């Protein structure tokens, strides 16, 4: 297993439980798991995305009672906020789509919304409430998954991917019947032709303000409109950590690998957040930071066997949904590796989809 982020850890955990002996190699480089929000959220950008979220959220719920307290799993639910009638129509479509996938949700009136989250600005048109969504602290959960019997963790950098073996920075080679590449953006340095791209994001966390916000709050435009297109964008997303700290997002940028916080863009993100929660203005922020999502052209992760490389499996390109969809990613990898019946249709996530759409390009 190359990568000990939430996806690599989940895959390692699933394979170890299936009886395989798993060695996880991780370079300890900055990664999406440590930078991200840790939200478990049902997104419906496509049927395949929703199917993966739905299956995965059920797996998280099953795992929740075993998670350590420091994993901070909390089923806070999501409120998708509607600013106008159009948003409400979007909310209703989303409700119907979630229902098809077996996820319950309900439309909330403005009065009820104000009662649920009194700090939201007046005048919102309502919200879609998804009670099954949750949050967790992903770095700790990833470490916990790796504590499973059958897993050994190696802090080392893989410098080359060879046939059924990897080369480490210190020159050693490790061989394995199955190699799973779950190194997010770093995978691009090990395997040519991966259609993944970095999308920079900013986050900010506040001091403790317990009891101010209870749900995860997301604007309905998140993903669909605010983060559509190719330009730099901001969208409102907020979650309350168990200590009362508020975690505020989000931004999305292309074509940069500069990890520095960009104060002007951070300000835009906060302006948007304050538009929904005016009380945020007087609240103390304690830290802002950035991270990079590994995104594919169609927004779906790449999960499954590499079409040409013997014994190589891919579990990467989860963009902002790695934490949400890690358990199902692991279930698909496990089913593939062991030749079991997959828990959901694996075809939308296969690497081959990019080959089929652009055969002439060959390598990108």
């Amino acid at each position, binding site marked *: 297993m190359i990568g000990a982020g939430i996806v690599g850890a989940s895959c390692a955990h699933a394979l170890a439980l299936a009886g395989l002996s798993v060695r996880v190699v991780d370079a300890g480089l900055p990664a999406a798991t440590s930078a991200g929000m840790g939200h478990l959220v049902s997104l419906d950008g496509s049927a395949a995305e929703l199917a993966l979220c739905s299956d995965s959220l059920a797996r998280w719920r099953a795992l929740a009672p075993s998670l350590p307290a420091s994993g901070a799993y909390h089923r806070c639910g999501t409120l998708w906020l509607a600013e106008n009638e159009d948003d409400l129509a979007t909310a209703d479509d989303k409700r119907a789509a979630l229902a098809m996938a077996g996820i319950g949700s309900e439309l909330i009136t403005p009065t009820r919304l104000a009662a649920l989250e009194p700090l939201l600005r007046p005048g919102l048109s309502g919200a879609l409430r998804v009670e099954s969504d949750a949050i967790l602290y992903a770095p700790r959960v990833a470490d916990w998954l790796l504590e499973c019997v059958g897993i050994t963790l190696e802090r080392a950098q893989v410098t080359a991917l060879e046939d059924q073996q990897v080369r480490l920075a210190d020159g050693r080679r490790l061989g394995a019947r199955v190699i799973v590449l779950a190194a997010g953006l770093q995978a691009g340095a090990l395997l040519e032709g991966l259609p993944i791209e970095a999308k920079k994001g900013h986050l900010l966390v506040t*001091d403790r303000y317990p009891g101010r916000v209870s749900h995860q709050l997301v604007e309905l435009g998140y993903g669909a409109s605010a983060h559509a297109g190719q330009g730099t964008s901001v969208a409102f997303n907020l979650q309350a950590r168990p200590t009362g700290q508020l975690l505020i997002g989000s931004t999305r940028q292309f074509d940069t690998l500069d990890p520095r916080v960009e104060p002007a863009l951070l300000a835009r993100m906060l302006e948007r957040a304050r538009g929904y929660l005016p009380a945020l203005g007087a609240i103390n922020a304690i830290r802002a930071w950035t991270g990079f999502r590994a995104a594919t052209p169609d927004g779906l992760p790449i999960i499954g066997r590499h079409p040409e490389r013997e014994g190589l499996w891919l579990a990467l390109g989860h963009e902002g949904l790695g934490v949400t969809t890690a358990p199902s990613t692991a279930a698909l990898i496990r089913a593939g590796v062991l030749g079991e019946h997959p828990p959901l249709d694996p075809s939308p996530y296969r690497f081959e989809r990019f080959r089929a759409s652009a055969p002439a390009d060959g390598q990108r």
Partner: protein
Amino acid sequence: MIRLTLDGEALVLPEGTSVAAALAASGDDHARSDLAGRPRAPFCGMGICQECRVCIDGRRRLACQTLIREGMEVERTR
């Protein structure tokens, strides 16, 4: 002398007194509580450790770097 309130109780102290010293003058110098509810009080005294953050007139501020003012309302952080 300056009059202020701390968690609603009136205090009268000399001008130039820091809010941190005002906490101590109240007889209970704690400024905030930890996650288990145990008291924490001003510690570094120089604006670094953040232990003395209290709510002053609606804003979360450091007691050690704020001087008392007439009519100031100070609340401990819970």
